């Protein structure tokens, strides 16, 4: 790593390395910036906008904006909290999310963010869209009702699996995740062990046959809130905070 430089997030000075985004620098320093489409193994995408921060007073997505020397970043403000909650609610009402019987419950990042933000019921009306389920594949299920269009599967399949199983079709409110075949996931070269499968933050892409291996109540976010892993680094570095 070449030499690092300093920027400020919520009044705390942190170090960043050249080439890092604001999000990556914050992660390294143990400051959690909420996010959905961003993933440490994937190229930045900037779709969900939950990681919006104020950079020198201007809104920017922390996941796509390079960190720079002397930047002043606001992350935990009442205003940003309100807008982030609004975005999370939009993702809930845009699809058909049924946490109480979703296999992903407890491991779902959307649900976990809603808990972290204390969202009890969205302020926006449910849209109840008609969306398809593709159960054609022997190992993997695609349920578009639960898709939040984050493109993690698109990027993972292309960049990590070296395939191109997923991409988007349509635009605007009609945009949806689609497969590299006429219609069916079974007609693609996807395999159950592909990174594109497990990297889905919600219950839109599910591995068949393993849904309840870990009982509800003992899952990742049942035990600790989302972001705890990142924040624990900071507590470890500065005990007594």
């Amino acid at each position: 790593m070449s030499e690092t430089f300093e920027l400020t997030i919520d009044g705390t000075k942190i170090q960043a390395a050249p080439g890092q985004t604001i999000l990556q620098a914050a992660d390294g320093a143990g400051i959690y910036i909420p996010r959905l489409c961003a993933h440490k193994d994937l190229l930045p995408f900037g779709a969900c906008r939950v990681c919006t921060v104020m950079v020198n007073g201007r809104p920017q997505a922390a996941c796509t904006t390079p960190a720079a020397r002397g930047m002043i970043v606001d992350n935990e403000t009442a205003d940003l909290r309100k807008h982030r909650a609004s975005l999370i609610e939009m993702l809930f009402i845009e699809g058909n999310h049924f946490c109480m019987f979703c296999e992903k419950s407890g491991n779902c990042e959307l649900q976990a963010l809603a808990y972290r933000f204390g969202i009890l019921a969205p302020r926006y009306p449910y849209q109840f869209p008609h969306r398809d389920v593709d159960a054609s594949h022997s190992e993997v299920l695609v349920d578009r009702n639960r898709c939040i269009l984050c493109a993690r599967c698109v990027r993972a399949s292309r960049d990590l699996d070296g395939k191109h199983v997923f991409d988007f079709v349509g635009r605007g409110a009609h945009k949806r995740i689609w497969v590299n075949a006429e219609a069916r996931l079974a007609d693609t070269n996807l395999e159950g062990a592909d990174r594109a499968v497990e990297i889905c933050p919600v219950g839109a892409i599910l591995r068949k046959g393993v849904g309840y291996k870990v009982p509800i109540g003992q899952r990742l976010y049942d035990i600790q809130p989302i972001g705890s892993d990142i924040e624990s680094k900071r507590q470890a570095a500065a005990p007594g905070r």
Partner: protein
Amino acid sequence: MIELARDIRDICRSHGNDRTRLMDIARAVQAKYGCVSSRALDLIAQAVKSPRVEVESLVSFYAFLSVQPKGKIVIRLCNDVIDELFGAEKVARVFTEELGILFGETTPDGAISLEYAPCIGMSDQAPALLINDTVVTYLSSDRAREIVRVLRETGDPRRLVRRLGDGNNAHPLVRSMVHNNIRREGPVVLSPLAAGAALRKAIAMSPVEVINDIKTSRLRGRGGAGFPTGMKWEFTRGANGDKKCVMCNADEGEPGTFKDRVILTEYPDLVFEGMTIAGYAIGAELGIVYLRAEYAYLRAFLESVLQARRTQGLLGRDILGRAGFHFDIRIQMGAGAYVCGEETAMISSAEGLRGDPKNRPPFPAQRGYLGMPTTVNNVETFCCVARILDNGPGWFAAMGSRGSTGTKLLSVSGDCSSPGVYEVPFGIKLSELLQMVGAEDPRAVQMGGPSGRMVAPADFGRTICYDDLATGGSVMVFGANRNLVKVALKFLDFFVEESCGYCTPCRVGCVLMQRKLEEIIEGRGQIGDLEYLQELGSTMKLTSRCGLGQTAANPVLSSIQAFRPAYEALFRKRPEEPFLPSFDIRAALGESEGLTGRPSAIFGA
């Protein structure tokens, strides 16, 4: 089937089997077969060595491309707000009756498809429509009946063009009934310049001196955002990369603007001259004009102008005899997507991708078209460039106001006696313009199109410039009787249709805003809804990824601010009904009541 395979092989080969030319390939297949079918997707994907889903992703993005078959003839009726003011709805009814189909459908014989299109750039001669590439203006019910009859009899949309428009609209390569409606000419854009005159002056200077002249003129981008052009060029010139690119944004899609169409019809040399000067200044050899699909009728004419410039040594290698100065221009056709007017989306589209905006940084000046440092400027900006080089930066900067030098082309439409194109110096008062265009006592003026703002009479004394009432050119006038909440809804309908869907706040926020406005207009609104809209709008503005989403809430936010009583008048104030349900429960139960054959128990038998 064999024919399809052969055609696609030929089409792809003629584009070098280059996946970055997917827009042209898909357009060519669509033109020949009325769709890019599932089989065609496979064949194209094979030829350009791209995953099928990537090709499908592109085809499904653009309004002028489709996987499902469309008719040999596609009627696209403009349902822009101005067209509706002038009776587009009545015309629409005639089409559905005469053709026996709804919008979005194709006649059973597969001959004619009927669709809506957002603003096609003809608001000063509304209502208007496109039939394939042919524009028909000043529609009426009778004319609509005649259109269907002629199309049924001849199958040839060109038969509908009888009286040709003025100027180059009558040129043999255009032959269009479109009118220029130039109401006020000006010294910068709407006046002739001998081809090559400005370019000769430019190459007598060094590229850096040319950039300095543009900086001295204080020219700002005419697309609306107003970024200093000289600075943009300097960044692009200074960026790393052997190959650079000059792009001209001719994707004039902001509803209510049509001035670029007039420039391209009458002064294309001025535009190409400006682009060539830009190429010289930044060190680019490649120029691209991204032309919106709605203006395809101008393409052959523009190609002929480019060809003439090549013959005159104004394009190509060693331009004007200057060794090492090479520059040429190609036209990239769009395929029906407003968002491609956003510069990074335009670059995506020209690269053969969905018209999704790109993340910034890197900015196009650093890494644009196919990774080359790229400057993207508006059609009108390039005209200003050529004129500045010809007449000098001082001459230019003496016009207009301090922060906004030069003149601006305005596209004026709506309730006024002389809609059309006006070249005015920056800094004129809106009230002066309204007088000029014959707008009597307007209720509101929409400045800058749907993404701009709605201005009330109290603010008509304000000035048109970047620092006060900014506009890329669209000025829509709404008369005393117009329903402004419905106007705001029309704008939201537009954004819902045109959002690319990449980011959450724009994709979802526009729909939520549209639904709420519909509720209010239907009389199911409540006073708290205005705060709801304002909060929603603030999230869209702050968190959206590109200018489309960041400005989509503007018509609602600015109309609530300036015309709050217009909204409040729609909230019911009936003391006997203190509770206002946001949905109609009777209507919601209607379907189940129909199925069971009895009224719902909630309301008693």
